[in-house]
């Protein structure tokens, strides 16, 4: 592949990313309407964990102060927030309406098209959520206890976490080619992200063995592991998390690619 071809491809997928970005920022009021919700969550978490720590009988729980615990939980919620429509919903709709048969014949990779579009839509929403949460956190619990270098390294994990989320959601959407409504599985995945991804209860509150299992599952990779790394700043934890994320991404790329290839055959058989 020559440089000119690479540049052309980069421009093409960059344009898809930009389209996704613009479609998300076109309705800025819609984005802004979510800000009070995340601020309310900061308020709730501050009171809830303030009481929990006083019950615990110390200023720290699992190595966390109230400040770091609230930052941990809120960052998990900011990073693992589900934007709508989800990729599984988009693909299911494409399959049900028949437009899937049209789009797979376009001159781009179907999977990469959705991947770029996903990031284009995720980033503005996440940045706005992050800034509103940060403002509320600074007001209620103080300045962020994160070094700038740790934060930047955390962004690499966030990129990998989002990629993993994309490939899982994409694979679940592809199941619509075989199942009546695969969205039930996407609902399951979303709920598991909330419940087992440390969204409500920090995984550090779990017994050691359960925590280890939950931290190795993909549900923690979208938010909890990233947020935990940002709080403790341990680079050994960074590399462990990265290894887990890359392993899951490789598995899910294989699953997504296989489902897509087999699904394509299904479409050509039925005529789309």
């Amino acid at each position: 592949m020559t440089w000119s071809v690479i540049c052309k491809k980069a421009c093409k997928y960059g344009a898809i990313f930009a389209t996704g970005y613009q479609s998300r920022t076109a309705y800025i009021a819609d984005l802004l309407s979510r800000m009070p919700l995340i601020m309310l969550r900061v308020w709730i978490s501050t009171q809830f964990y303030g009481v929990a720590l006083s019950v615990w009988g110390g200023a720290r729980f699992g190595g966390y102060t109230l400040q770091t615990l609230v930052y941990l939980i809120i960052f998990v919620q900011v990073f693992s927030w589900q934007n709508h429509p989800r990729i599984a919903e988009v693909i299911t709709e494409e399959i049900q309406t028949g437009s899937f048969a049209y789009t797979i014949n376009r001159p781009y990779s179907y999977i990469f098209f959705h991947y770029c579009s996903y990031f284009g839509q995720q980033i503005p929403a996440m940045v706005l959520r992050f800034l509103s949460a940060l403002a509320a956190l600074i007001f209620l619990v103080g300045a962020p206890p994160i070094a700038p270098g740790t934060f930047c390294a955390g962004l690499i994990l966030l990129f990998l976490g989002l990629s993993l989320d994309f490939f899982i959601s994409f694979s679940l959407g592809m199941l619509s080619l075989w199942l009546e409504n695969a969205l039930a599985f996407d609902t399951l995945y979303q709920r598991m992200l909330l419940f087992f991804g440390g969204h409500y209860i920090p995984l550090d509150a779990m017994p050691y063995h359960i925590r280890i299992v939950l931290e190795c599952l993909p549900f923690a990779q979208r938010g909890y592991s990233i947020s935990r790394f940002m709080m403790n700043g341990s680079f050994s934890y960074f590399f462990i998390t990265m290894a887990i994320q890359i392993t899951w991404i490789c598995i899910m790329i294989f699953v997504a690619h296989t489902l897509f290839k087999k699904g394509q055959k299904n479409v050509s058989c039925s005529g789309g």
Partner: protein
Amino acid sequence: MFHVLAAKKRILLIKDLISANIRSAMEYRTNFFTEISVVFIVDMGLLWLWFIFFKEFPSLKGWIFLDTANLLAVSWAGFALVDTFAVNIARLSNLIIEGGLDYYLLSPQPLLLHVTFGKTLIKEIGSFFSAATIFIILGNITFSHVCLYILLILLSALTYYSCLLLVGALTLFIGHIERVGNIYEFMLLNLIFYPQTVFSGGLKVLMYTVLPIFFIGTVPSQILQSFSWYYLGILIGFSFTLLFIARFVFYRGIRRYESGNLLAVRL
């Protein structure tokens, strides 16, 4: 006599609408059972997480795991009833903005009743089974306790329903607040898990008024644990007052409703 006949007619209408929607959902049996099982398993997983959490923090200002279990046994069932049988109420804002009320306005059936039970989302009933399972696990299965449980579920559902109706009906006055309606519903569903005893100040006021989680979950669960006529009276009073206000706002607002020129085929 006339009122009895009217009530009978309305009950028959509700029965017909629900059974038609369930039959439609049962067309895809695999999907039906998969979705219900999924919701049930995940709900039980969340209960297990709270169990583990309360092993670390046995009491949060007097709130123990048993309180959370009772809270989920009532509130999940209440949420499930509304989210299953009254789907249109949760998306009332969208329905109004898109002109989706046209069909219901032209029908000779009572408007609010018809809108409420016009659509069913059967998968959410999985939460009802989770709630019922928790109630059974908690024990104390006597006839009077079961009757009390059913009454509390209905009151919890009524309060939740009234909140959604009120926010949805405000669309008729304010305009595009679909997103606010969605966020409001999301807040109610997500904040119910937290022990109410830990909140104080403005947050507590918020949970008694704008987001009446206290009346949807905490009061019914406390009545279930230790029955009190006083609190039951307060709960009934609050639920019906809220319903009356929401209904009043809806019918006032409906005069301002404008058709959205929506073309749709209903099979």
